[in-house]
């Protein structure tokens, strides 16, 4: 299994690079903060909790924000 630190560093860079930052900055709080949590951590469950939304509903916003989930 690859090193988690290496995997997460590469995944975070990809999320930061791929994200539509204009879209993210246009979102109301706490959605904006939640999307930033997702970019930094990759943790969809945690970000959905921050947003106060069901995971699948937050995931639809995640797709619009062009933030990839890296597996």
């Amino acid at each position: 299994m690859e090193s988690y630190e290496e995997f997460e560093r590469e995944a975070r860079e990809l999320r930061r690079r791929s994200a539509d930052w204009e879209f993210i900055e246009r979102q109301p709080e706490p959605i904006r903060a939640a999307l930033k949590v997702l970019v930094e951590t990759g943790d969809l469950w945690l970000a959905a909790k921050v947003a106060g939304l069901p995971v699948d509903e937050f995931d639809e916003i995640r797709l619009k924000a062009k933030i990839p989930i890296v597996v």
Partner: protein
Amino acid sequence: MSAAVADTCFLVHWLRFRDRERLFEVFDSVAVPAMVLEEMGARGRAMLAPWLASRRAFLIPRINEYEVEALRLVEFSRSQRLPTLDPPEAYCLAVARRRGYAVLTDNKAPKYLVRALSEYASVKVLDSLDVLALIYGSTLTRAVRAYEEDAGLIFSRSRLRTYGVEL
């Protein structure tokens, strides 16, 4: 074939996959903890409903014993500085160990936890790439492209190489 218990993120993404029904070529049934169902919105629940109606998926109630064990796992992962384990994944691990199920999750943390905690060493943890590989075998590359497109996921290129896939 056997049963698996799925966490929220796995289900949210797998249910978008055009060939989602093929999951049952690998598992007879999928257990869905009540806490996972509660975290899904209208769309996710609607997509899960046919699986529940056909009894290929079934609900697992909140059980205090599993919740206490899940908290222990979350605390263990924090104390060992393992990747962050969220409560639903921890609950799935607790269920899987006691019931002999596999765990379906796209998060890394459960895979690291079962390597770090000896009493969990027998728990099989699979992510969507592992499941796709079991279903598709030699035609995995096409399935990976379809899954990435449908679910909005990106598989790590190094992990894909371990399955002989170069995109």
